[in-house]
């Protein structure tokens, strides 16, 4: 059996990374196609009708855009945290709390003029979402807690909080015992532009703002440095704790704003399922977009097509929407798997040509491969005889 050798790549080839990721998505489509074929449907027909289901007429396109908006806004928020290598997977909870903050004013101040009420709701949503992210950030900066678990748990707390409101203090007395929160007054609902609520304009503006923030501002630069090396940031005299806290507040605030948009424009009320899973899907879109704000727009839209198309094939082919979710899962699975091939090269046989002579040691990667300069780093399946 020929030995397999695995080595870390040092040079970053933009084209190659793109090809590898595109291949991964193609592979996901192929595998899911096999699954659809197993259900007795023609995968090509199914894929085609997913596209027409999502983009086929103006109404469907509008629905797709409505699904894309929370993904874009939430992904922008997540990207800020991820740039700092702070793994905020609490976006769902931050969306819910943002929706809660906005709903508080929508329900309690229905008589404010519409522009003012909407601004207050947006501000409240951002503060609530921001605080929800600030809490785990504070504990991480102060006590070194694990942010992944902490932010995840905060999601459940947020869900249960809204459930409590729904069954308790905020229960709509007019719903004759049905546990739901009252609908917003018209003043609390975002207006529409071209048939879609103005969330889409807000999203596009935020894309530009976040892009400039990350690339051109001092704070954006600091976030990038902290993400690469906390030691370097401290050495340069940066206030690392302050950067983590403020960046996470901004991250949560964007997610909270997504929650406000959903509550105001889509559900017209507060509900536990207000996010529609956007908080989790946005983790995927952020990652696929490589944290780049412009790319987030494209990836989020494509994912919205996937979701919208998925619900269309449910009616058109009588296959469960879960089939489309399998495709989502497959795409994530393959793209994450393909990261390995972006970062390492694999070769068979004896004539391996490593692309580099030296890899700086600090790039810690999966344990077995971290130091190509050492013999242990070279994995080989060849069982040689030993002396």
């Amino acid at each position, binding site marked *: 059996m020929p030995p397999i050798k695995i080595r870390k790549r040092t040079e970053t080839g933009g084209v190659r990374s793109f090809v590898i990721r595109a291949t991964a998505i193609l592979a996901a489509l192929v595998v899911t196609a096999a699954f659809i074929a197993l259900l007795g449907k023609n995968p090509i027909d199914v894929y085609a009708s997913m596209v027409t289901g999502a983009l086929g007429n103006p109404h469907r396109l509008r629905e797709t855009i409505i699904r894309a908006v929370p993904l874009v806004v939430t992904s922008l928020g997540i990207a800020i945290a991820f740039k700092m290598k702070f793994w905020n997977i609490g976006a769902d909870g931050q969306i819910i709390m943002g929706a809660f903050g906005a709903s508080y004013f929508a329900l309690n101040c229905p008589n404010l003029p519409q522009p003012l009420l909407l601004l207050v709701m947006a501000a409240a949503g951002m503060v609530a979402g921001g605080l929800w992210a600030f809490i785990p950030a504070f504990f991480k900066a102060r006590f070194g807690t694990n942010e992944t678990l902490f932010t995840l748990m905060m999601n459940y707390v947020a869900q249960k909080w809204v459930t409590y409101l729904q069954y308790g203090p905020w229960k709509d007395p007019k719903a004759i015992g049905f546990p739901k929160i009252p609908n917003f007054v018209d003043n609390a609902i975002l207006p529409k532009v071209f048939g879609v609520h103005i969330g889409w304009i807000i999203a596009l503006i935020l894309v530009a703002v976040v892009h400039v923030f990350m690339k051109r501002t001092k704070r954006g*630069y600091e976030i990038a440095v902290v993400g690469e090396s906390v030691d370097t940031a401290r050495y340069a005299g940066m206030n690392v704790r302050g950067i983590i806290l403020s960046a996470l507040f901004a991250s949560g605030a964007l997610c909270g704003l997504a929650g406000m948009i959903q509550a105001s424009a889509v559900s017209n009320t507060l509900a536990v399922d207000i996010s529609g899973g956007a908080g989790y899907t946005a983790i995927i879109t952020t990652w696929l977009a490589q944290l780049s704000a412009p790319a987030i727009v494209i990836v989020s839209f494509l994912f919205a097509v996937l979701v919208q198309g998925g619900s269309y094939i449910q009616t058109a082919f009588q296959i469960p929407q879960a089939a489309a979710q399998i495709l989502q899962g497959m795409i994530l699975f393959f793209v994450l798997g393909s990261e390995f091939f972006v970062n390492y090269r694999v070769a068979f046989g004896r004539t391996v040509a490593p692309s*580099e*002579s030296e890899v700086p040691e600090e790039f810690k990667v999966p344990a077995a491969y971290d130091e190509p300069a*050492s013999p242990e780093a*070279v994995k*080989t399946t060849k069982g*040689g005889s030993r002396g």
Partner: protein
Amino acid sequence: MTSSDVIRFDRISKTFGSVAANRAISLAVKAGEIHALLGENGSGKTTLVNMLSGIYSPDSGDIFVYGKREYFHSPRDAIRLGIGMIHQHFKLVAPMTALENIIIGQNGSLFIGKKGVSVKIRELSARFGLEVDPDKRIDDMSIGEKQTVEILKVLYRGARVLILDEPTAVLTPQEIVRLFSILRRMKDEGCTIILITHKLHEVMDVADRITVLRRGEKIGTLEKTETSIGELTDMMVGRAVSLEIERSDVAERKPIFETRGLSVRGRDSLRAISDLSFTLSSGEILGVAGIAGSGQRELCESIMGLLPIEKGEILFRGENLAGRKTAEIIKRGISMGFVPEDRLGMGLVAKMGMVDNLILKDYRFQPGFFIDRSPARARAKKMIEDLEIQTPGINTPVKQLSGGNIQKVLLGRELGSDPEILITAYPVRGLDINSSYTIFNLLNAQKEKGKAVLFIGEDLDVLLELCDRILVLSGGIAKGILDARTATKEELGLMMLGRTEKEASPIAAH
């Protein structure tokens, strides 16, 4: 070829991308000799011997072991042929004992007969003069002991040919003497040794034959008895260079910086520096000598406000800096170009390009919310010219540059801010001779401008030639400050090992 050749490389070539690391190198190592591979960093020494571990495979050319053509797929092939490699960075499991480290990865039965192994280890130790307690944990060992364990490890696996990659880089002069006596002993026992180094004195001390590599090419193989340091230097560098580092004399010196009774705990909260007092003057390079881990890092970090100060004062122009924030210390004109062990860990952001790295410390002095990168772009371009930095572009991630160029970027940035005090640690580690001299010149220029330099060094020759005074640290305690013009390597070495200045001075030795 003759029958006494243990290993023979035949026209080995190897390229990495556009860089030819080895160009048709032919080389024969005779049984029972100590063969030195001499060359600057990047000359292809390590690449060549790594072919014996299967880490790299030659693009063309053959390797013969005992006259038979062999292929190397993994380090196991090397061990099978009795070739053992001792890497510059030790591959030991710290919480385990010497014995456990020696038997790691060995085939055998499910259970380990420690007694038998122990007996064999003691046998080997006695035979080669390797003093190691098999039951001592690696954690508790000095660097020299760890290296001994590495040597024992390959001997235990039956190696008759030992390859040592820059073995003296981390050792004190006394440990080097001991290592060399071990190597000679092994030679007497019939082992063959390949020694990779760029230090000429060592080669002249211990080697039998010397092969000089330069930029991937073999320049020649010489008998030690028939050559000289001057000839080897010429071969290594390609032209005659003066080995001497210039030490300029600055007439006007004023103390501007002082520590008084400084005590600092390291990150592991153990006391790293105890009661350290010294002064630093303008127009002076103050060297700091010490074995790795003697408190150098903590000294730098505490001055920069990165580590809390337990006791004592740090005075800069009469003002106590203890307890100040890093940003304030930078603002006062104290600059640190710390090159820690991993080179990019602190000081530079590996994945960012030159421009983003140049603004690291002064971006905050720009007005407003935004960063203007155009001055840094101009600075980067100028720096590339002034310091002859080899890089594909000003936005290429610095991790893709070679060690010397990375160092130039770091030091160039620190000097660019025209600091009153420059703290620099191991600035020439891993650099070739030419890059090293560029850096020494930069430091001297700083001194001539009347600035103060604190130079944390490891190469005693460099410390003695470059610095004005040398502070010796041992276990976080100052053992004394020597005048670099009169001090000797032996004195420094003894003080690094913990003797006081008096005990170490040649007069008091008897």
